[in-house]
Every structure is written in structure tokens, then in C-alpha cells.
């Protein structure tokens, strides 16, 4: 799900940087207030662990394929959402800088798609409410908590991956990169990520269960004392059930999308004539992108990608200039080759002069 630079327009990339930067700023502010300097090395070591852990191949029983782990839910369950978010930022930055996994400009978008949803949405909407709820009361204290961890991890991973995949679709479409209709793009992305999310959720649950068995105090968001829960917690249980329902509807929606892409597009965005900026406006309410930036992104995107569209199509002069463009590009390629030859020549001469 790491987006490359090429998939984004600069305005969208900048807007996503602003959004992710704001979330990071709030997190840093909150962590500073906590004043726990010993947390920094824990965050660093956990981040490094998740970075390496993402490379483990988990065999999926019954199939020949393998799955991987998503870091966001695991890190926020271990460190809390703010520290988890910062750790995810660092992981994504290192992946981008050293492994070209996700681009430098797309980093803001990648942080939003993979870290923000996993750490904040997953934690506050699912992980904590489910863990503090009274779900599975009949299974005994430990059994109930184990079941809650599994439910929260799976539901969290599925939901955050769905949101992330949907954001990838929105950001790419908004950048005017692909001619693929939004609905069809969704139909490609959402079902795949439903399956991935399910597997990632199970892997995350397995790791967290192990931690719960051996060192439960490491898990964040666990209710302080199992038996002294006040009765009003049942409200949270309701929230948890609601969340699961939302999840199932979401899953159903993505299945629906695969069979009827136009229907989804129509349902989500009214009609095709409404511009992308309106779509972004709708998105902004849900995801918290500042609306001025969103509008600007929409406007600039129209200028950068729609205008050439109209100017080029079918006009003969455009074809004429394009031929000269090709010839010019060939000359540029020639110049590049010349630069390479010159560089090689000078390096050889330098090497020779060192020998003498």
C-alpha cells in the first residue's frame, strides 16, 4: 500500500503532509506533556522490531500463500496511539529513504493511509472500546479478554486497511493520475484489502495474545482491573457492537462495489458531473483534511490535469508540436549519454593519474 511519488499531484501530496504533520504535532505535544523520556527508546526498539517483523512470511493454513503483519495496530496496542503513530512515521520514513518503498513526496499520504488510521482510528474506535467492554463475559476473565483481543485486532486491521485503501484510491483519483473510474478502482482495491486485513488482523492478534499471556502489563488500553469495572461500561459494549456492525456493512459495501462499481460511485458521490473538489469536500468531513487545502487541491488539480486534456484532444497543432517534442526528447537523451560518457572519461583519467 506504499504509494510512489508518481501517483500524486504536488498539491495532494502537500495537503496530506499538512494533515499528517498536524496529527504528528498533536501526538508530540501529548507525549511531551506525559513527560516520560524512558518511552523514547521503547518506541525506537518497537519500531525497529515492527520494521523487521514486516518481513516475516506467515504461512496461511490451507493455502499456499503467505501473509504479513501490519504495524499500526500492534504498535498502538503496545505503546498507545500517540507513541505508536510516531513510531509508524519513523518506520515509513526509513522504508521510504533507504528502500524506496513509498516516495519522499508521498510520505505524508503514506503516513496518513497506514499510520493514522491504524493508530488513531483503530485504537480509539475499536481497540480500547472492545477491550474495556463486557463482551464475551461468559468465557471467564481470561477467555473473555483473549476473545476481545482477537476481535479488536481483526476488526481493527480490517477497518483501518479498508480506510487506507480507500484513501489511496481517493488520493490517486484526486491527483488526476489514472483514468480508471473511481468506482472501478475501489472495486479493485477494497476486496483485496479486506482479505489482507483479515490475515493481518489474525497475525496481530497472535502476537498480542502472546504478549497478553506473558506480560499483560505491556498492553495499552487494557482495563485497569478486571472485576472492578463500573456498570456504565456496557455503553462501550454497545459502541463495540456498533463498530463491528459498521465493519460488516463496510465489508459488504466493498463486496457490493466489486459487483456494481457504478452503483457505489453513484451512492457515494451523487453523480459524475459533480467535480472532484466536491468529492474531497465530502471526504474532508470524514477524515479531517482541512477544507481550504482540499478545495485548493481540487482547483489546482483541475488546472494541472484538465486543461491539457482539452487543449490537446484532437487538435492538429498539438500533434505537430508533439513530434518536435519527441525529436527534442531524443536530443535530450543524446545529451544524457554525452554526460555519462564525459563522466566516465574524467573518472578514468583520475584513476589513471592516481596510478602514476
Amino acid at each position: 500500500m506504499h504509494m510512489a511519488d508518481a501517483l500524486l499531484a504536488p498539491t495532494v501530496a502537500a495537503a496530506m503532509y499538512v494533515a499528517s504533520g498536524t496529527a504528528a504535532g498533536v501526538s508530540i505535544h501529548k507525549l511531551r506533556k506525559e513527560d516520560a523520556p524512558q518511552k523514547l527508546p521503547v518506541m525506537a526498539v518497537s519500531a525497529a522490531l515492527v520494521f523487521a517483523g514486516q518481513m516475516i512470511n506467515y504461512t496461511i493454513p490451507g493455502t499456499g500463500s503467505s501473509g504479513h503483519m501490519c504495524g499500526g495496530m500492534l504498535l498502538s496496542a503496545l505503546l498507545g496511539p500517540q507513541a505508536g503513530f510516531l513510531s509508524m512515521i519513523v518506520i515509513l520514513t526509513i522504508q521510504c529513504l533507504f528502500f524506496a518503498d513509498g516516495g519522499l513526496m508521498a510520505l505524508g499520504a503514506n503516513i496518513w493511509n497506514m499510520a493514522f488510521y491504524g493508530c488513531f482510528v483503530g485504537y480509539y474506535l475499536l481497540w480500547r472500546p472492545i477491550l474495556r467492554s463486557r463482551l464475551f463475559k461468559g468465557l471467564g476473565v481470561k477467555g473473555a479478554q483473549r476473545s476481545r483481543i482477537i476481535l479488536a485486532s481483526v476488526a481493527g486491521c480490517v477497518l483501518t486497511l479498508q480506510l487506507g485503501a480507500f484513501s489511496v484510491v481517493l488520493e490517486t483519483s484526486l491527483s488526476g493520475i489514472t483514468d480508471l473510474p473511481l468506482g472501478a478502482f475501489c472495486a479493485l482495491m477494497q476486496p483485496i484489502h479486506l482479505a489482507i486485513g483479515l490475515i493481518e488482523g489474525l497475525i496481530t492478534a497472535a502476537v498480542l495474545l502472546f504478549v497478553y499471556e506473558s506480560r499483560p502489563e505491556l498492553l495499552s488500553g487494557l482495563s485497569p482491573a478486571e472485576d472492578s469495572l463500573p456498570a456504565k461500561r456496557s455503553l462501550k459494549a454497545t459502541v463495540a457492537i456498533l463498530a463491528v456492525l459498521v465493519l460488516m456493512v463496510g465489508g459488504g459495501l466493498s463486496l457490493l462495489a466489486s459487483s456494481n462499481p457504478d452503483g457505489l460511485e453513484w451512492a457515494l458521490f451523487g453523480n459524475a458531473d459533480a467535480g472532484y473538489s466536491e468529492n474531497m469536500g465530502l471526504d474532508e468531513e470524514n477524515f479531517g483534511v482541512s477544507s481550504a487545502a482540499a478545495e485548493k487541491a481540487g482547483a489546482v488539480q483541475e488546472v494541472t490535469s484538465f486543461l491539457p486534456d482539452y487543449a490537446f484532444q484532437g487538435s492538429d497543432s498539438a500533434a505537430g508540436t508533439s513530434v518536435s517534442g519527441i525529436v527534442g526528447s531524443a536530443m535530450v537523451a543524446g545529451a544524457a549519454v554525452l554526460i555519462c560518457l564525459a563522466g566516465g572519461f574524467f573518472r578514468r583519467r583520475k584513476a589513471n593519474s592516481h596510478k602514476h
Partner: protein
Amino acid sequence: MNKMQKALRELAEMDELAAQNSIIHRLCPTAKLLATVLYIAVVLSFGKYQLSGLAVLLLWPVLLFQLSGIPVHICFYKLRIVLPLVLAVGLFNPFFDRAILLRLGPLAVSGGFISMLTLMLKGLLCLMASFLLMATTNFDSLCASLRKLHIPGMLVTLLLLTYRYVGVMTEELAVMTEAYSLRAPGQKGLQVSAWGSFLGQLLLRSMDRAQELYASMLLRGYHEHFHYAPMKPFGPGDVVYLALSALFFLVLRFVPAAQLLGNLLLR
């Protein structure tokens, strides 16, 4: 060699490249970072049919590769990550956008085909630019310049610490994976019974390690501040480099140089 060993090798390779010495290596990291970001922004700002305008921008990374003496093939190796995703998105364009933009004799080129090529070229250019930045800049000094650019200290310190521990953790997991695969011959990946305990064991150990790490940081006088690598001053050479790069990008953004060159030749 398993995935983690490959990742370790890739990390070490980048470190070695960054430790070389050339005109580009000696520049201040801040100047290189700013030029790279500007370059990528200019590349991305091109419209989806402006292939020839984009092509001229290839000259900047080519020149830098030559000036710094960094081998290009390592960069192309990293393309394996960038290209599939870009292709997955771009490959549909020729099917949806069939308006003919250009006729080359009998060959009609559709808009979708051009926009796909533009997308691929953008992917290549952006990759080259960020690869060049990392291959010519020591990570410690890059972090120091991030701090100069007012990125919060907590984030930069975390970045440095994590980078330090990425090597350690990856190595540890590489050994564990190797050991596991030797005891489970013929099996692909981790069996379901070990899903939790494999990473969990290491996680518990790592938490203890983090406590020790903090203790050792305190013993060495850590107090909310981190000492970064000595900062290279932003000298006149850096100003010239940044100004020339910016001028080059902006001129090429607004002047269709490839077409002008072509017209000159065709006339």
C-alpha cells in the same frame, strides 16, 4: 539469503555509498534535501500528457550520478518496488483514454499510452532523485539538517535511534528465521502455531533491551537533548548548487525545452 539479510545488505550498501567522497557528497545536506524536494515537486507538477517536458528533467539526476560517481544499477534495483504499483495504476490508462493524440506515420498513439509513459517516467525520476539524496548523504548529518529545518527533536531523535536499531533487530530476526527454516525443512514461511510466539518472544526481549538502552543513555549524560553529527555549514558552494538547481527546474517547468530543440532541428 532470506528477505531480512537482503534488507541488511541494502542498508549497508546505502551506508557505503554515502561514505564516499565527491563534490556532491561534500555539499551541505540541507541544500541537497531542499533541491531534491523541489525537483520531485516540479516533476509531479507536470500534466499527464507532458511527456516531452518531463524528459528534459532527466538531465539533472544523470548529471548528479556522474558528478557523484554513484553507480546507477543500484538505483534500478530499487525500481522493482516502485514500478509494479505505478504500473498497476497506469496500465489501465491506455484502455480508458483512447483519444488519439499523436500520429507517427501509420502509428496512432493514444492519450492513455502517453499518460502511462509519463507516469512511469515520473516514477523513475522521483526514485532517482531520492536515491541520489540518500546515496550521497550520511544519515546522521541528514538528521542534523532535519533538526535545522525545525522538525521536532523528538521525531528526529526517534528516527536516529530507530535507524540504529533497525539493523540490530533485522539481524536478530534474520538469524531466527534462518534457524526456524532449518528446523522446519520444506516449509514456506512461519506455521500458524508459531505466529504469536516467534515475534512475541523477540518483542518481550526487546522491551527489556529498551530499558537497558535508556539506562545506558542516561549514564552517558542523555538529558532530553541529543547530540547530532557535526553540522556542515551552508557555504557559498551550497548556495550556488541550490540556486542553479532551482533555476534549472523552474526554467524547464515553464519553457518547453524539448519542443524548442525539436523545432530547431526540424526547421
